[in-house]
């Protein structure tokens, strides 16, 4: 059995992925040094010829390469997760950067579990935007006294670059983006649906992800078109207050 599968997703990235892959290799090495077995996958989703060529370099031969024809981040994750070996799944977009301790510290947290919950989904403590836009945000665990599910009507708490049990992904597969109809933010949806089903969202102290904000990123695209998350029964008026209380069916 493998403890962790790390999936790097690429579509039209080339050299921008250089620092990404280096940070991933460093974080994987740290996780392995702590005793975790790690499977590493590059998922090439409708990759451009240049992207394919970039990731086919011998320098990345220690990664498995999976060709996917989805044209969608969430659907790609679903496809790759279905064939992943790891008990836990971590994802990385091909232009973002992990802190070196993210996978090792994150694995310590998710494998410890949480009493009264089906399992733990971990997010880094700090999310830092860099490149075109600069910002720094401290994430929030769902049992924080500062947490309110009402915020989720308008904004998400957690990025998709979490570490989650594979089972959580199988229970709650990502939905597809539907930009023409203004429906996006699958990570936001995943967080709500998993939380409602008894997966506890925590943050991992002293870890960070660094999100590259280029002019053409998917988040920018979704924001520009003012997409919103899908309507979810977990956010119904009579359910929302219990969202983070760890109540779930079975």
């Amino acid at each position, binding site marked *: 059995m493998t403890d962790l599968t790390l999936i790097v997703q690429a579509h039209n990235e080339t050299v921008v992925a250089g620092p990404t892959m280096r940070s991933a290799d460093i974080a994987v090495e740290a996780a392995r040094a702590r005793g975790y077995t790690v499977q590493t996958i590059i998922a090439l989703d409708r990759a451009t010829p240049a992207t394919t060529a970039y990731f086919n370099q011998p320098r990345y031969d220690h990664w498995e390469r999976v060709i996917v024809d989805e044209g969608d981040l969430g659907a790609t994750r679903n496809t790759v997760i279905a064939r992943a070996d790891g008990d836990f799944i971590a994802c990385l977009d091909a232009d973002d950067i992990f*802190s070196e301790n993210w996978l090792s510290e994150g694995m310590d947290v998710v494998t410890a579990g949480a009493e009264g919950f089906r399992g733990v989904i971990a997010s880094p403590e700090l999310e*830092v935007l*860099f490149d075109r836009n600069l910002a*720094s945000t401290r994430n929030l665990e769902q049992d924080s*006294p*500062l947490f309110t599910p009402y915020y989720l009507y*308008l*904004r998400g708490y957690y990025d998709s670059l979490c570490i989650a049990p594979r089972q959580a992904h199988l229970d709650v597969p990502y939905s597809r983006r539907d930009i023409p109809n*203004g429906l996006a933010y699958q990570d936001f949806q995943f967080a709500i649906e998993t939380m409602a089903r008894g997966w506890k969202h925590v943050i991992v102290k002293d870890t960070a992800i660094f999100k590259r904000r280029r002019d053409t990123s998917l988040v920018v695209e979704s924001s520009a078109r003012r997409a919103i998350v899908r309507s979810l*029964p977990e956010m119904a008026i009579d359910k929302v207050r219990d969202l983070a209380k760890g109540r779930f069916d079975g």
Partner: protein
Amino acid sequence: MARTPKDLLRGARRRLSGDAPPASAVSGTPVEVLAEQTNFGPMVDALVERARRNQRDAGLDADYDLVRESFDHYHYLYQAKELQEEPDADPIRHFLRQGAKARYSPTADFHPQKYLRRHPQHAKGPERSPYLEWLRRGRAAGEIADPSDGVTALAPLLGSEPGEVVETISELRSDLQERLRHGRLGEVFARAAEVEPLIAVAWERAVSGTQQLPFRNEGVARAAAAIHACHEDLGFRRARLVIVTRKPRWGGGRRLEGHLAHALARKIDPRDIVVIYTDDTGETPADRFPDGVREVDFLTRFRGINEDTQLHALVALIRSLYADAVLNLNSRLLYQAMKPYGRALAASENLHLVFFCDEQQALGHWEGRGLRWFYPACDYVAGIITDSEHQRRELIDRYGVSDEEAARIQVFHAPADASIPLVSAGSAGSTTERRPVVFWAGRFDRQKRPDIVVEVARRMPDVDFRLWGEKVLKGDPLGELPENVELAGPYDRFADLDLGEADAWLYTAAWDGVPSMVLEVAMTGVPLVASLVGGVGEVVSAADAWPVEGEDPAAYVAALRAILADPDAARAKAVALRERVLAERTEQAYADAAAALLLRPEARA
């Protein structure tokens, strides 16, 4: 004595300030500067140490000394780029010199602009800097100076006082900053910056502006709290039908929303009907809704929040109700929300648009929701509802709607009100013994055409005309009135009118749907002369009323003369009108049609 968490916090903040406390208040005591090594790197540390050495001696300036106690040189210098290359710069002096115009914050717990926005009176206070005001008095008084947005709005949701929330944020921030500077978090940040040097630029934000979720945007926080307040108003209960409309008082009577609620209350619990007012506030007329219908004053709950956020929140609120159907009944805000979110809303909601007749503008052109919104939205909404066959036909003809698609355009035929009594025949006495009286009611505006009534009155000097209503246009829309016209003012309810005094009712509108007033008059047995416009012909016919085509006053005069010439025959026709309309427009039929269209066989899970 054991140290409390607050003592520890003060200690952590002291460490962030980086200076030893002033040795004493003795005038001119040099401040000991402690060299510091942080994860920011030796260049930043050297820059900060240099700036600290530029501090004034303690005891010379009480204000300076007080600011120094909590001043964070790293925090300040990451913001004040112009000081980074100045060897002699003293950031504390720089800050104090800015006074109320300070752009940079002296410590991560104090945001100068936001403090003044919340407490503008301190912009011209007695202190050299609003920060001094806060340190000396404001903080103890509970004034919030924290950079976090939405604390006051969200605190009630968190079951805390705003001050407690700020304290929690501040503790988290101090801990985070300490770990960024001297702990593992800063180490991994620095290592990431070695992998991708562009990350190093982001130190600036991490040190001077790391935001704590969910306090990142004032409008979003307030909107989240406002959604919660609306949920409280609604008793945290779902709905089966949601009507989103402009305002509570929009004409008298039940209107479409009232008819619909009363009709569906035959089928479902009235509490399952929610009405959201988005554009104006006010008091709902008595009897518009059956008891139990829940109403939400969205406008008041969201007052002061920017409209973009309101649009998103309105969609979120509607979706949270998990209703069988949602009606947009002339809500400007919901139409605004449909521009960015219409398709997303319709993806989960059984959304219907309600169109009434278009309105002619002063320059002659027409405006209306149907004109603006039918073609952009008809492809994705569940359906269109009109109050008249006339408008339905107009939409189908104008836009070339196929027979299949036309099925999604439904007419809600307003039910007749059988509780309106038939006026006793001859209760005013014979017209051989008194002057006949004609009633008219409506707004004195371009649509209702009171000018036609006045002209008719001029041509019938032997008849009195009593007009109810009030002018809505500036100036004098009626001009000089003949002596046989009496302005009776507005009325609250149709039932308040003494219809026993009316020998005929005159309706002269230039355009309309199916007017409530025509339906009401049709119940009374008072002979009705009505302009044949819009959906009026769906109520009156030549067999039981006196429809008039065109706007020639002579045609109205002829109709009234016919009524007055044979009052008994006219009365019989008017009674027949009541019988026919009652048979055609039953509340049961209305309820059945509305339920079939709007209610699902079973509520969604």
